[in-house]
């Protein structure tokens, strides 16, 4: 069954590629879209089977004696395949209605099929070479997708280069890490790599390489720089796939490392992962909270969520080495729940952002507004996604964060000083993250959908076509359904990683006996509904008596003018925060005051400009790139065109070799 599922994915991929290539442009979306959705469904079904314990192998021979390539998903792989498959299917359906211009081209559809299938097969890979193969294939396809609109915007090209470069960094790190492991194990098959590593130098180096490699793909600070550039430039269904599915494979990799390849190990392993997660979470959401480009905001929020996932993994590693395996399991469960939650709400949000982009041509929040009434379904779906991203109760985001916090507060113990210091700080950081996420998504939703339109595009927005609405609704429904019935998710998560002490209770609530906590959001919803009834009854009673009366203008203390430019914008909304975190965000601000020509005291206009760049990019990467640049510029002098120099190189090499061989 598993083998059939894997072959079905490959077959559907081939079919989708062929369809995309041969079907004429008019029908292309309707032909390729469903085929790609099929890839996702096949992946989800295969993943579900693998999660349920089915096993199966697909072998593929290669020319070199490093094969055969093995595909055989484990339960954990199946879990990720399931998540990716569902996201993929939704995004593919969405794409049918969404694609236009370059994103409707042959190459774009072909790349999409390859992208989705290779992501799913990464989760199925059971040996180093096939893992790296599909990993890199996924990178190539996604780079092609990021480049889709290269002829439309000048920002696409640098984004793709950053992405390709960082992806290659990730690939090389993984190659080195896996190389070390394979050399140690004498085999490239995962089953052989699965050895408990001692505290050897090789294990340490391999650990760092692998974790950093996966972290780069997951968009973890400080390797995240590609993410806020690439995600916004890609077409939105691709952004959704990248953000909700692809970066998860980085998390998958880290989990593989700590639960399969390098089990146990030094305390600093756990601290490293936790530290990376902590910094990513806080930095990511801080950047998101001050971003005004909607897709950039969502991209940084991905960094935040991946940070939380890593933080959970790091705590699990620390707790396991401390001996509290029950709590460690809860932490790992939190990570997987976060994966699921993030996949659900980030899909919703990116699809929503795409819907906005398609309707208005804008992704700058400062130019949106008033879309709630113009695009009701998009507004509702985006709203639900935003609630999820803000981790508010009744959404899956809340469940995941709740489990994480339960693990964290039960993790510390007085006997372990490191944990006693680390855990409170972690809780504080998670809380700050949650608070800023709340602010971020209130801003995103409030500025985009409420108030009056801030641009012509927003003014004339119309609701998106059916397939897009279907996809958004499905994704939003997942956010709520998993939030109300997390029991199912909990069971899946427990199966995926072989965790004990995670179960379901009540109306599919979640039960964590290891930390003595349980939560049944369905009952909470019922309670809330029951309490809301009398309030609503009162409201309705008065509403019938005194209906709402439309007025011409809002009041605004008498200060509201007609111009929508008088409204608060995303930039102004985040301004207090940008000021508070001035030291870590380092925004560039220009205030240009033009005085009236008649009198210096009169101001004709004031221009305020604020640019937020990524601190890591400007402080870490650009200097490093500059250094390499200077070195290569110096290196160019070696090849200065003078044949005498060239002969001298040969001569020197000759002399050196002579000396070496006669020594």
């Amino acid at each position: 069954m598993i083998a059939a599922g894997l072959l079905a994915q490959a077959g559907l991929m081939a079919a989708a590629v062929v369809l995309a290539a041969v079907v004429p442009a008019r029908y292309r979306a309707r032909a390729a879209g469903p085929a790609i959705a099929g890839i996702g469904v096949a992946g989800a079904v295969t993943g579900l089977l693998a999660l349920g314990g089915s096993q199966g192998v697909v072998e593929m021979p290669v020319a070199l004696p490093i094969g055969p390539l093995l595909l055989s998903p484990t339960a954990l792989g199946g879990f990720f395949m399931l998540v990716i498959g569902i996201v993929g299917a939704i995004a593919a359906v969405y794409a049918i209605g969404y694609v236009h211009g370059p994103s409707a081209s042959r190459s774009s559809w072909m790349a999409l099929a390859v992208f989705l299938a290779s992501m799913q097969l990464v989760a199925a890979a059971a040996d180093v070479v096939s893992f790296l193969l599909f990993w890199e294939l996924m990178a190539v396809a996604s780079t092609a997708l990021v480049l889709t609109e290269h002829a439309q915007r000048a920002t696409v090209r640098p984004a793709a280069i950053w992405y390709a470069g960082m992806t290659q960094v990730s690939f090389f790190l993984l190659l080195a890490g896996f190389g070390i492991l394979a050399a140690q194990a004498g085999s490239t098959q995962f089953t052989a790599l699965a050895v408990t590593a001692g505290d050897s130098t090789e294990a340490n180096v391999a650990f760092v390489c692998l974790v950093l490699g996966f972290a780069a793909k997951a968009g973890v600070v400080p390797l995240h720089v590609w993410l806020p550039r690439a995600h916004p430039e890609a077409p939105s269904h691709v952004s959704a796939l990248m953000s909700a599915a692809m970066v998860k494979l980085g998390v998958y990799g880290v989990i593989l490392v700590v639960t399969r390849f390098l089990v146990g190990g030094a305390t600093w392993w756990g601290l490293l992962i936790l530290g990376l997660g902590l910094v990513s979470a806080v930095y990511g959401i801080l950047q998101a909270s001050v971003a005004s480009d909607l897709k950039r905001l969502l991209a940084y929020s991905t960094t935040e969520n991946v940070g939380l996932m890593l933080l959970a993994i790091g705590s699990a590693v620390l707790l396991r080495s401390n001996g509290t395996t029950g709590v460690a399991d809860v932490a790992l469960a939190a990570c997987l729940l976060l994966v699921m939650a993030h996949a659900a709400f980030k899909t919703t949000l990116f699809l929503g952002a795409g819907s906005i982009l398609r309707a208005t041509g804008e992704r700058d929040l400062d130019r949106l507004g008033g879309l709630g009434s113009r695009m009701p379904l998009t507004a509702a779906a985006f709203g639900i996604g935003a609630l999820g991203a803000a981790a508010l109760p009744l959404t899956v985001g809340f469940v995941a964060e709740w489990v994480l916090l339960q693990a964290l507060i039960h993790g510390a113990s007085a006997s372990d000083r490191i944990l006693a210091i680390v855990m409170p700080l972690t809780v504080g950081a998670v809380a700050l993250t949650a608070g800023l996420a709340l602010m971020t998504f209130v801003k995103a939703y409030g500025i985009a959908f409420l108030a009056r339109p801030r641009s012509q595009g927003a003014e004339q927005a119309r609701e998106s076509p059916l397939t897009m609405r279907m996809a958004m609704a499905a994704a939003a429904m997942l956010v709520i359904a998993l939030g109300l019935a997390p029991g199912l998710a909990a069971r899946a998560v427990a199966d995926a990683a072989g965790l004990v002490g995670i179960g379901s209770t009540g109306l599919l609530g979640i039960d964590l006996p290891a930390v003595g906590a349980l939560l049944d959001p369905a009952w909470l919803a019922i309670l809330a509904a029951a309490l809301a009834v009398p309030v609503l009854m009162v409201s309705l009673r008065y509403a019938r008596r005194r209906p709402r009366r439309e007025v011409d203008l809002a009041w605004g203390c008498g200060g509201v003018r007609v111009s929508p430019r008088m409204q608060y914008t995303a930039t102004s909304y985040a301004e207090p925060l940008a000021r508070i975190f001035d030291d870590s965000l380092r925004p560039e601000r220009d205030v240009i005051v033009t005085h009236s020509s008649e009198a210096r005291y009169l101001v004709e206009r004031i221009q305020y400009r604020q640019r937020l760049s990524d601190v890591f990019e400007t402080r870490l990467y650009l200097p490093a790139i500059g250094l390499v640049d200077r070195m290569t510029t110096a290196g160019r002098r070696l090849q200065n065109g003078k044949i005498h120099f060239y002969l001298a190189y040969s001569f020197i090499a000759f002399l050196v070799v002579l000396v070496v061989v006669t020594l």
Partner: protein
Amino acid sequence: MAVLLISPLAACLVLAVSTILLRRAWLNRVAGLLAGTGILASGLAIAAAVMSDGPLTAMGGLLRADALTAFMLIVVGAVGVTATWGSLAPRGSTRADAFAYPTLIVAFLFAMTLAVLADNLGILWVALEATTITTAFLVGHYRTRGSLEAAWKYVVLGSVGVAIALLGIVLLYAATVQAGQPTLSWASLALGGIDLDPGLVKIAAGLTLLGFATKAGLAPMHSWLPDAHSQAPAAVSGLMSGVLLAVAFYGILRIQAITDAMIGPELMRGLLIAGGLLSIAEAGALILRQRDLKRMLAYSSIEHMGIIALAAAIGGPLAISAALLHMLGHGLAKSSSFVVSGRILNVEGTTQISRIRGLLARRPGVAIPFLAGTAALLGMPPFVLFFTEVAIVIAGFQRGLGWVMAVAIALLLLAFVGIARHASDMSFGTGHDDDAPTGAVEDRDRSWHGPAAPIALALIAAIVIGLLAGPLSTLLAEAAATLAGGS
């Protein structure tokens, strides 16, 4: 069976002579392609024969073919076909100086075939030097100042470098004379039966390696390469980058097999690692700020030869078969890329990277093969170079050369970023300076500007060979075993 070995050489000779004597335009046009096809066919035939009957010999042992030979012949033939077919001039066009060109191309292919088939280090040397001779005027074909300069540098640096190899071969011969069994046959030497003085073998091996490394384009002996490759006509650049380097490296592999049998692998490993890392570093540094497309491709060849050198240093069945497959994959991809770069030069009038913009939007027929070739060269899956690079790194770690691999990987990143950035600068975007968004580019040029089939076939082959188990993997394994036979 001896006829199998002689036939490709004879065919090339006949073709070369006919181009001189007959002076038929159609023959001149397709002579290179015919020679390439012949070599490819004989390579396949020899491969089949070798795999069923073991090594073949001819002409009193001067020519010999084993699995490695057969594989190299396939490389020469396949790249020859790609490069010559891909840059086939339109029918009826006349080229200045056209009569020498086809003759030299065929002679060039002949020399490489001879180098691969000869079971004598002396003849191998002669054949390698002959490649310099035949390509000198090909490099200088365009008769511009640049090509003249390139030709001069090429001949001087190439000959001087190869002269060092001759010194090494001479010393090796002296050692065999002293041991009482004078021979230059690598087949006999690699068996390890002859008791040579290790000190002498070390000198001989070091010098031969250095000499062949010149032709193989390994730093610091590579200086001729970017100039020659950038100035030669596209087909010649493709042939030089795609096979000449590989054939020279074949010489290194033969020497290595001999020394491994006699003095152990340490010396060659050390030298090859130094050369490999230097090459990758040099290539990475110069690609990053490269201004010319063809020079960039040339440096990429240096980078790939560095990778192959590292693989040779690692040794063992996995690394060696990866190195061999890498040669084939690189040959196919690089010759296609050079052919496409020739088309870019034709249609854009320049190979300056900064003056080529928006290629994909304006000329998809050229840009798509260019991008595909670049992806292949960058080791992106599903192209075969992905598998070989992964295999080489894994083999390196298995050999305990972890730090070497780490450094190599870090340096490869430079080359990757450089090539990726240049390729994307040239291909993507609108092609207008201001990068203003344009809905549709008006005069979109979909023509391939040359035969599409060879490029497509070469790139498809560069994918397929990685996934082709069965006969290919047997051939590779046997070829690797040939080299490891003595140790």
